[in-house]
């Protein structure tokens, strides 16, 4: 096909400018001597130093990472087990369970947020880190299941039979044969769960309580009074970390593409 390369590149570049502009601005102002985030007046690193003395901000960061990590690990484990269970076994009501699993994916987050808040209140559970992590697990599991399921359906169905033909019991089969071939699906599910958790505002807003102040909630509370550039500095550092992780994972996946082309 003859395609207009120039037009293609203009479209791609414009979309990327749109996507990265707000982030770029935040990073830029993290080096700004003025604390107003309005005009760039000069270069400084002192906001990065300040960052380490801003206790509530650091606490919010730690909470955020704690929630993201623990909910990712738990939802990945439960999601993987569940995806395999739903793939392998038949049981009464499986259809209903399958339908229920789509709910967190499709309904507006606010509905899931107030539903969890309501049930927490009904159960007299005090809002805090536990309820927050549980909420994040709740909305992450279905995404992990979908991701692992796509790996399962593309897996050779004879693998399992071959394993049991060779004398492996079902647990051995799962751990030695099935699980290794699901790794890409599990990893992308975990990635998704982690980024969903980092990104979430709405559900956290309803399910977090005092003592479980996370980064988005912290920023939400100070955004109207004015955000100081040490927050920009923190965001820049987070972005840097993400960028490093992404670059590594991209290099790995690009090698795989190259391998496939051969």
């Amino acid at each position: 096909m003859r395609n207009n390369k120039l037009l293609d590149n203009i479209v791609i570049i414009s979309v990327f400018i749109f996507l990265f502009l707000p982030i770029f601005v935040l990073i830029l102002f993290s080096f700004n001597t003025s604390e107003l985030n309005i005009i760039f007046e000069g270069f400084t690193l002192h906001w990065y130093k300040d960052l380490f003395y801003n206790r509530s901000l650091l606490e919010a960061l730690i909470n955020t990472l704690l929630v993201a990590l623990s909910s990712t690990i738990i939802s990945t484990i439960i999601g993987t087990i569940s995806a395999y269970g739903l793939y392998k076994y038949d049981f009464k009501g499986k259809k209903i369970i399958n339908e229920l699993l789509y709910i967190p994916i499709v309904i507006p987050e606010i509905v899931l947020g107030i539903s969890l808040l309501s049930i927490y209140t009904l159960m007299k559970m005090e809002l805090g880190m536990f309820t927050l992590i549980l909420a994040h697990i709740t909305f992450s599991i279905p995404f992990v299941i979908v991701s692992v399921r796509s790996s399962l359906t593309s897996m050779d169905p004879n693998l399992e039979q071959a394993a049991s033909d060779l004398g492996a019991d079902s647990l051995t089969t799962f751990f030695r044969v099935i699980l290794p071939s699901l790794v890409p699906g599990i990893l992308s599910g975990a990635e998704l769960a982690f980024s969903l958790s980092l990104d979430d505002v709405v559900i956290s807003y309803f399910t977090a309580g005092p003592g479980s102040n996370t980064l988005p909630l912290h920023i939400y509370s100070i955004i109207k009074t004015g955000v100081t550039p040490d927050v920009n500095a923190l965001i820049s550092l987070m972005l840097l970390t993400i960028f490093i992780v992404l670059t590594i994972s991209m290099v790995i996946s690009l090698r795989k593409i190259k391998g496939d082309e051969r």
Partner: protein
Amino acid sequence: MKNKIIRSIFIVPVILYSLLLIALPIIYVLIISFYKNDSYGGMIRTFTLENYMSIFNSVYIGIFLKSFLIAVITMFICMIISYPFALAVSHKNAKTQSIFMTLVMVPFLTNSLIRMYGWIVLLRKNGVINQVLLSLNIIKNPLNLMYNNLGIVIGMVYTLLPFMILPLYSSISTIDYRLLEASSDLGANKWKTFTKVILPITFPALFNGGLMVFTPALGFFFIVDLLGGGKIMILGNLIKNQFLTARNWPFGAAIAILLIIITYILIMIYRKIGGKMDDLGA
């Protein structure tokens, strides 16, 4: 016996999870929506349709219309941006495609609130965009880029764009390029090839994207709070207020149930046109 235990290990967690953390909370919200609110922020256990009736109050109808309008506009703008972008990316080689699609996701690994703050810095009266335009003498007075509908739509489009780009791209990238060549070979120009070949094939993906943009757009109260300036309300703000400030849970629950119903009508249409549920989460 041993097999039975193994079987339970694999299926009990998902059953418990979906019943306790998905079904139960939503059923409870459904029940609440028939309760009555007492004046102290508590609930009276009864059965009333009052909450659903009061949705038809003109104030709330206005909020409904506003929400739908914002969501529909957001959805259309996302479509208009995503199609050319996904097509342009699909013209690149495999390596470049994979880099570009990863880059699309990078901003979303930060928090959406943080990105909204970035937009505030850009859009406000003394924000970066106005400063730049003023210093270049393109405008004489700063533009009102936020605290209005424009700001809300920018925030919504920005936050939801990847949900349109991803399904469209994955659908477009699986189109056999020979179909496009056949179309061109048979005399179709680019626009005809798009409307007659690409659009019909990618329609389920377009609907998927539309769904994943439209329904969240009804609920993102924080975008409206931050970029709308507090005067404008959408369904998300209404629900949030009922639960956290007005403390009228039954009414808030009724609106939430309504949102669920709207979502499910859209899902039914999506399934009818051949969309797969798993694609929604991918």
